[in-house]
């Protein structure tokens, strides 16, 4: 157990250091989601009430697309110089690698959300009519839902032709219930339209189910070569 933790932390620290050095993923994600926000804002031009109804969908679609940008880079970095092969033959547990990558992506997407949320509030004139603190668990659970499956399917699509296209094709159908929960919960909280509890519980269930599945099956995917 301690080896799992230390290897996870070591890999995570390595990834953070690499990302801090280049900031490739973060910059491209930031600019990408900024573009999405501006284009959506042009195309809909909503008033305050409409904004509350549609903002949940816009925000999460923007983050979903942006997350794909980061997720695609997760493993491609390890392909250079056969780093992934080295992982495969090393005695380190495969799940340590997976957890490190998923946590790294989670951190990255969370930073993105933290930076982009104020922009959304400004552009769409948002003010939550429901309990705003509930947006926090929605954001955390929702981000993990996207990232855990995203990291997993990025590893699956490594073995395919045109893998950059493959990732969204695999990830989006599986993510439909998660995206719907995030969007609905956000809409309910923003519009003060009843309780978002069901959606938060559904998100939590989704997270638990798929985190378990990813951890159970990641070794199979990693060893597939």
């Amino acid at each position, binding site marked *: 157990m301690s080896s799992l933790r230390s*290897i996870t932390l*070591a*890999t995570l*620290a*390595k990834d953070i250091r690499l990302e801090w050095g280049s900031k490739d993923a973060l910059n491209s994600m930031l600019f990408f989601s900024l573009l999405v926000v501006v284009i959506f804002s042009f195309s809909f031009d909503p008033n305050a009430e409409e904004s509350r109804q549609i903002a949940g969908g816009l925000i999460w679609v923007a983050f979903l697309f942006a997350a794909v940008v980061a997720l695609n880079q997760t493993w491609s970095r390890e392909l250079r110089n*056969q*780093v992934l*092969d*080295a*992982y495969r*033959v*090393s005695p*380190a547990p495969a799940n340590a690698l997976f957890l490190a990558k998923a946590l790294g992506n989670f951190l990255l997407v969370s930073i993105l959300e933290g930076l982009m949320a104020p922009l959304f509030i400004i552009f769409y004139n948002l003010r939550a009519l429901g309990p705003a603190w509930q947006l926090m668990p929605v954001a955390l659970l929702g981000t993990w839902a996207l990232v855990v*499956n995203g990291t997993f399917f990025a590893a*699956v*699509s490594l*073995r*395919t*032709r*045109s893998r950059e296209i*493959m990732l969204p*094709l*695999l990830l*989006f*159908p*599986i993510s*439909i*219930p*998660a995206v*719907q*929960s995030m969007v*609905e919960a956000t809409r309910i909280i923003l519009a003060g339209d009843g309780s978002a509890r*069901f*959606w938060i519980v*559904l998100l939590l*269930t*989704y997270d638990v*189910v*798929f985190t378990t*599945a990813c951890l159970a*099956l990641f070794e*199979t*995917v990693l060893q*597939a*070569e």
Partner: protein
Amino acid sequence: MKRVLPILSVLTALLLAYAFYQATWVAPTERTMGDVQRIFYYHVPSAWTAFILFLINLVASVIYLIRRNTKADAVALVSAEVGVVFCTVVLVTGPIWARPVWGIWWTWDIRLTTTLVLWLIYVSYLVLRRFSDSSQTPKLAAVLAIFGALDVPLVYFSIWFFRTQHPQPVIGGGGSIDPRMLHVLLINWLAFSCLALLICCFRYRLEMLQREVQEAEAMESLSDVSGSVIQVPKPASPPNKVAR
């Protein structure tokens, strides 16, 4: 298997013809919907057949992951392909019926949405199989099938809740069905299941033959270079410590 297939083909053709006759002429006309209701005899059996095929795909995928049995993988591939075809029939015939009866082509009803998501998942499954050409495709596809199976109940719950919040046109559930209609429906289902089984058998044989051909080609190209030294790619040297 070679001897069974012609018999199954004839049986399926006869059954389909009989089922068509039953659905078109024998089944009573529905009182409010009229003849358009007869699409039900194609729509519902296709749906049941598709769901059974997807279930077979899941079971075969799990068996493949445990046993690494190539036959199980072929069964998984075949059932997914045929399942997507039947599911497409469901998604096409549904709106054709819904337009005159509900007045709309589509609604985000629980069954419609779950079927659509199931179809999307299995299309992505087939895309993965098509785009991945390594020998590891079966493993990756089997993993995806398990993920898809985990996803479906969650989709079902999310739409179930969504629907209770936003009432939609009521689907023809809950009511009782004329026993003659049920009889025709079951005959049609039997015919469609036979058709699915027949297509699966042919497709399975084709898949096995294709694999044999591929294997033979690989062996041939190996024996072509057997005179010279076969180059084995050098594996990356294992690191002493975990990469930091």
